[in-house]
């Protein structure tokens, strides 16, 4: 029972962090960023030295954790901000559909860049192997990593909440997410807020990359896509642009996946995701605006 709870929480953590990265950017510029998954993949491969060999040549992955963490987080934030400056800045005035297509294209560019450097073969890596040891809590044996995933996610969520509530930059971001042009008329700098949102979103992608990389031990250029699909769904059922909703829906999706994995009859288990998506459709039928509807449907910029 406890095992199920922890499975649900740790899977939900990944979805919640992914959904948050999408919701942050959607909030300030109404962009559904399909390149987010590829930013995750980029962060994972930042651990390796570029080579097309089947054997992974670990580079940054060897660093002790206190250097590894900032390195990967900076990679994510840096790439994300770069995407904003090079690509999305030129689409600010464009309609959301155009921006979305641009993000698709950008995602492919990042993915094929990785493909060129690393080939499409999945590579195995043992990232922070000391974390895979089991610990015993209340009679359940859990991998330490699962515990750390949950704790790290909580720390990130609390940190982000404090950042948004207590700092001036957070205040400006919340104001801009609700009504961008009003915020600008009050002197809030559009570029600063948008770059901040991209940096945060990229750092969240990096956090997912680390957790996912450590959990699975295999690196694959497609790996961002699988989490991102669920994360997108979480942002939508959470209420696009609502950060709280995205996190809640991420955890709910994680729970739904794990519970169905356990409860469904054996024969139906391979189709688990179909049941999860079915549940998603049901939720959207009854709450098309999402669980927590976001404020501020005013036009952007």
């Amino acid at each position, binding site marked *: 029972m406890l095992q199920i709870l922890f499975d649900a929480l740790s899977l939900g953590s990944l979805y919640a962090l992914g959904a948050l990265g999408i919701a942050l950017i959607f909030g300030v510029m109404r962009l559904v960023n399909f390149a987010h998954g590829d930013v995750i993949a980029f962060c994972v491969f930042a651990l390796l030295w570029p080579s097309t060999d089947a054997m992974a040549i670990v580079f940054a992955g060897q660093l002790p954790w206190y250097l590894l963490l900032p390195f990967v987080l900076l990679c994510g934030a840096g790439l994300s901000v770069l995407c904003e400056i090079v690509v999305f800045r030129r689409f600010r005035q464009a309609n959301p559909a155009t921006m979305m297509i641009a993000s698709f294209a950008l995602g492919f560019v990042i993915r094929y860049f990785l493909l060129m450097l690393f080939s499409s073969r999945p590579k195995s890596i043992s990232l922070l192997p000391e974390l895979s040891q089991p610990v015993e809590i209340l009679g359940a044996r859990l991998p330490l990593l699962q515990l750390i995933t949950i704790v790290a996610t909580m720390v990130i969520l609390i940190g982000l909440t404090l950042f948004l509530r207590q700092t*001036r930059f957070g*205040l*400006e971001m*919340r*104001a801009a997410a*609700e*009504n961008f*042009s*009003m*915020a*600008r*008329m*009050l*002197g*809030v*700098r*559009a570029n600063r807020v948008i770059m901040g949102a991209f940096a945060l979103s990229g750092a969240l992608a990096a956090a997912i990359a680390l957790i996912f990389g450590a959990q699975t031990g295999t690196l694959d250029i497609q790996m961002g896509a699988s989490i991102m699909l669920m994360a997108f769904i979480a942002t939508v059922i959470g209420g696009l642009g609502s950060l709280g909703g995205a996190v809640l829906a991420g955890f709910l999706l994680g729970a739904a996946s794990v519970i169905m994995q356990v409860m469904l009859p054996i024969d139906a288990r391979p189709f688990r995701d179909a049941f999860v998506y079915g549940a998603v459709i049901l939720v959207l039928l009854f709450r098309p605006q999402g669980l927590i509807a976001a*404020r*501020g449907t*005013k036009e952007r910029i």
Partner: protein
Amino acid sequence: MSLLALSDITIRYSRLTAVRNVSFSMDEGEILFITGPNGAGKSSLLRAIAGVTPVAGGRIDLAGHEITGQAPENIARLGFSMVPEGRDVFGSLTTEENLLVGTGMHARERGWRSRAADELEAVYATFPMLKERRHGQAGLLSGGQQQMLVIGRALMTNPRLVAIDEPSLGLAPNINDQVYERLIALRAQRQLTLLIVEQSSARAMMVGGRMILMRGGQIVLDGDARTLGNGEAIQAAYFGYEDN
């Protein structure tokens, strides 16, 4: 030199011309009403000054700087503060957070925090009701309270020119009187320059000052509100429009 000068401003929304070759200027300390029926281009003009609506032609100068085509955040830094139509309160933020959003633009200056705190107290002194609700969600305030909040929010940036788009919109007449009472008191207190858009010229005649009447994207009358209000010209300009 005038504080605000518009020359030959034209604003287009794709094929529709909302404002056609409009020029006027305002001096420091002046109060100017822009009135006119729906669709006259009043709001478009304010939004163009604020930098949120692009102009198709002409030039705007504020406090000695050309601001045509500038970003709204830079225009705000030159001392222009806008209270848009429909108020645009940040509903999910608290009352106090709404007031504080605009103070960040002075963050590079020394002592801005204490000045922002002083400014906050000054706004609370003018609108004590805002202080009572300071930690409450701004979206839950009544229409009149929200109007006071956005006026307070506009003042927090310590502006030289405050533009207000239809402060009367959706407010009960007695609440509207209160809003104007405060505005006039504030103007005397801080030597504010006020640019107010209203559909009705009645308020302008009551308050006094200068009035510009617009129709079909052009200025049809420009003069003292009280003398204009008594003339027949204004009736002709308003022909077919019911005064509220």
